[in-house]
């Protein structure tokens, strides 16, 4: 079920209404059932997969907590089980195709007219959200191994794994935070409801109005690279960087908003990532739940920042390469990860270089230094985005060439100008500006209007109804699935 689908639009209010009507002792069960219905709506059989993973990890957690001697072996078994599932569903096709491509390449080198081996069709469909919930399971069993208390109640644990607002594309939750909320008796709170609705509408606006319309412009560029002019290529590349942000942060907002309607808080995933002045800062602001997961369960276990400079660099680079592979089973994702890894190393070296030069270090607090850093980071993200979006390396190289070889532009420029993107982007930026002004304002009138707004149900109802019409009006004909659903 997609968050931006008609089905979800009907499903969510039904589940929310039932949730608050039912006595509190039934609510967790209801959410669990609703989460499985949500997941099985796509391919019912995959409900069994998430259930099996939940059962195994539940017992692995209990086993680790009970056994002092063999807990390392149990953890290892649990990790192998989770990673095997992820690898089988996500990487089997990739591994087989890559192996056969390599064999064919060798055959071509050794014989004039070799018999080419064709890839067998494995017909493995990637279960939605598997990358996210296996990472949650790995976090759970590792933290139990490190000393956290395991979850004794199977129903609660099953809900942690299946909780539908964060099931398909995160944010990757931490079980300690989730269980803490589950143990507290959740009361209906109007402010949670208001904030939840705000997040859902903001998410829908980001996804449908900004992301999907930008996607059409970007698609025009990436589908016809050979015909692109210089400006066309720049618009397509820049557009994709912003499209993926609006798409993914829109998803996260809808997920967080949906969770709030049930009184649950799931972690934030984005914190103004395009204001980062360097790549290290960017990864602290972008897909934060994945960044912290990679830090805690990959980078630190590999040695983290301990050891020689070479080892630290190796750990950073490998973490990013594996992070790239996590995104998708294709070489261009691996290269995208390696590109980010290399970027992080260069960024780190540059910071050290500046620190060691007194003249340069003096410039650091200057605004121009900061904004130059922001511009360089965004430029890096544009190039990295090509690796992410392109169908393969040849297409990526062709797009980079188009950006730097002067040529007249038409198609993407026309698509952008005829689209609603310029207007909707202006609208969204104006809204954010006004919102920050209101938050900072000490004016009595502003406070009065704010108080009226918070109290007036008709005002909120009409505002959201109007916003819904605006979103529907700006929506493209075809609803695009969320980009991160494929991961």
């Amino acid at each position, binding site marked *: 079920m997609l968050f931006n689908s008609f089905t979800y639009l009907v499903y969510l209010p039904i589940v929310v209404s039932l949730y608050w009507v039912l006595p509190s002792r039934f609510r967790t069960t209801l959410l669990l059932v609703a989460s499985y219905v949500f997941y099985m709506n796509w391919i019912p059989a995959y409900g069994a997969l998430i259930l099996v993973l939940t059962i195994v990890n539940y017992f692995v957690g209990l086993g680790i907590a009970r056994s002092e001697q063999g807990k390392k072996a149990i953890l290892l078994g649990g990790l192998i089980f989770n990673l095997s599932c992820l690898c089988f569903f996500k990487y089997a096709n990739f591994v087989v195709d890559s192996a056969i491509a390599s064999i064919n390449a060798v055959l071509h080198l050794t014989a004039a007219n070799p018999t080419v081996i064709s890839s067998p069709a494995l017909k493995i469909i990637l279960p939605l959200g598997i990358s996210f919930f296996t990472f949650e399971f790995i976090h759970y069993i590792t933290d139990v191994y490190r000393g956290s208390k395991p979850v004794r109640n199977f129903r609660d644990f099953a809900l942690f794994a299946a909780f539908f607002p964060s099931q398909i594309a995160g944010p990757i939750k931490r079980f300690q935070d989730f269980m803490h909320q589950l143990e507290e008796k959740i009361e209906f709170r109007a402010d949670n409801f208001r904030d939840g609705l705000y997040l859902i509408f903001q998410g829908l606006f980001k996804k449908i109005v900004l992301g999907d319309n930008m996607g059409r412009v970007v698609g025009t560029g990436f589908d016809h690279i050979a015909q692109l002019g210089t400006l066309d290529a720049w618009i397509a590349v820049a557009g994709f960087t912003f499209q993926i942000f609006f798409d993914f942060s829109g998803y996260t907002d809808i997920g967080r908003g949906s969770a709030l309607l049930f009184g649950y808080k799931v972690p934030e995933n984005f914190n103004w990532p395009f204001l980062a002045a360097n790549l290290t800062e960017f990864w602290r602001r972008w897909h934060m739940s994945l960044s912290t997961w990679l830090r805690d369960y990959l980078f630190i276990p590999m040695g983290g920042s301990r050891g020689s400079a070479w080892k630290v660099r190796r750990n950073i680079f490998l973490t990013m390469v594996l992070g790239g592979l996590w995104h998708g089973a294709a070489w261009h994702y691996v290269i995208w990860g390696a590109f980010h890894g290399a970027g992080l190393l260069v960024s780190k070296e540059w910071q050290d270089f500046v620190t060691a030069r007194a003249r340069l270090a003096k410039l650091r607090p200057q605004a121009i230094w900061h904004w130059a850093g922001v511009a360089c980071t965004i430029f890096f993200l544009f190039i990295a985005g090509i690796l992410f979006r392109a169908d393969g390396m040849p297409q990526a190289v062709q797009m980079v060439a188009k950006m730097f070889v002067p040529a007249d532009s038409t198609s993407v420029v026309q698509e952008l100008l005829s689209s609603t993107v310029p207007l909707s982007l202006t609208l969204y930026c104006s809204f954010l500006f006004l919102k920050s002004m209101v938050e900072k304002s000490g004016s009595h009138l502003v406070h009065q209007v704010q108080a009226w707004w918070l109290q007036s149900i008709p005002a909120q109802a009409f505002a959201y109804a*109007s916003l819904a019409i605006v979103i529907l009006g700006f929506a493209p004909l075809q609803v695009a699935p969320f980009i991160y659903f494929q991961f």
Partner: protein
Amino acid sequence: MPTTLTPPANQTQSAVKTAPAKSRKRAAWLVAAEALALCAVSIAALEGFLKMAAIGQQEFLEPDKQLGCHHIAGKQVTWRMEGFSNETLSSTGLRDTEHSLAKPANVTRIALLGDSSTEGMQVALDQTYGKLLEKYLNASGNRQFEVINFACSSYSTGQQLLQYEQDVRKYKPDIVLLLYNRGDSVENVFVPGPSALSSPRPYFYSDAAGAIQCDRAVMSACSSKLQPNAVMDYLRSNSRIYGVLSQTGLALSINEPRYRKIAGWFTTLVASRTKNDGPSTWAVPYAKQDPEKVTGALLTKLQGDVEKDGAKFVLVMFPNTVKDPVYMRQEAEYQTLATKNHFPFVNMTAPFFAYGDTKQLFLQYHLSAKGHEVVAEQLLPLIKSLARN
């Protein structure tokens, strides 16, 4: 000294008894007034904003008692659902510039019949194959040509025949060109189901003697829907909010199978509760029809009408780049019909494949500007030769 004034105890008690009821009453009244005012402000602001943003201007069809639907005359349309165009329909409801009913002297008039592919909302008017054809023809010789685009979204071959008989022949065209699209033949015959009730149109069948007949049973069943309605007509022509809601319904019916199912149930429910709209309207007093045969008979009838008016009839097949086997069968069948009935037949499939990258010729479902260009280029020599003879 106290900072707040506290009333005496007796006064406080009476106030406690009366104030809540009074404030509740006032609050309810105020809330209702506030809601009304906010409703008016929201609607006005939203209409203004949508107009400024050119959103919600995609509604361009209104019900028609004869044809099922037709274009809203003079409506400004900003089409964004697939491709983009921003134009105003003519005062007679054509997706075209203004054309006089009287044919100017020494002008060869070409009438285009078709559905959304010929209508071409997805591209600017100047980029439609009709306008391009006119431009190429007028640039290629001394003879003057006028191409009039009568095409309308969703029209079946049968509706195009009725449109010809009702409107097009008044313009006295010299050549009538029909672009046949995939799915047109299925739309010619009645298929029981909720979709038939949601967009009522005339259907066609061959009677026992083999003559083609028009079945208006569904239109009669939905007569209330097809009656002029001042409020709905106003909203359709002027309200952007209505336009947004209507386009959302269309997008949902295309993309969401569950919505289609629910909308279907709802339509059936409404129809079954409406006077004279019972299930009896679903049964037809004739045998199950073969869509291709009915379409063949409709094309023959249209050719006959056109030729009786002294004009020439041309059948053009929409390109079958997806190699749909059903459509391939139709291509062969109508080509045979054209040979038998001696009318020109142009199949766009081969020219589209000859172009190479067929992706460039389409947007999602409809022709891109380049696709329209290829169609116009292909038609140019045939129209020139027909005009000469």
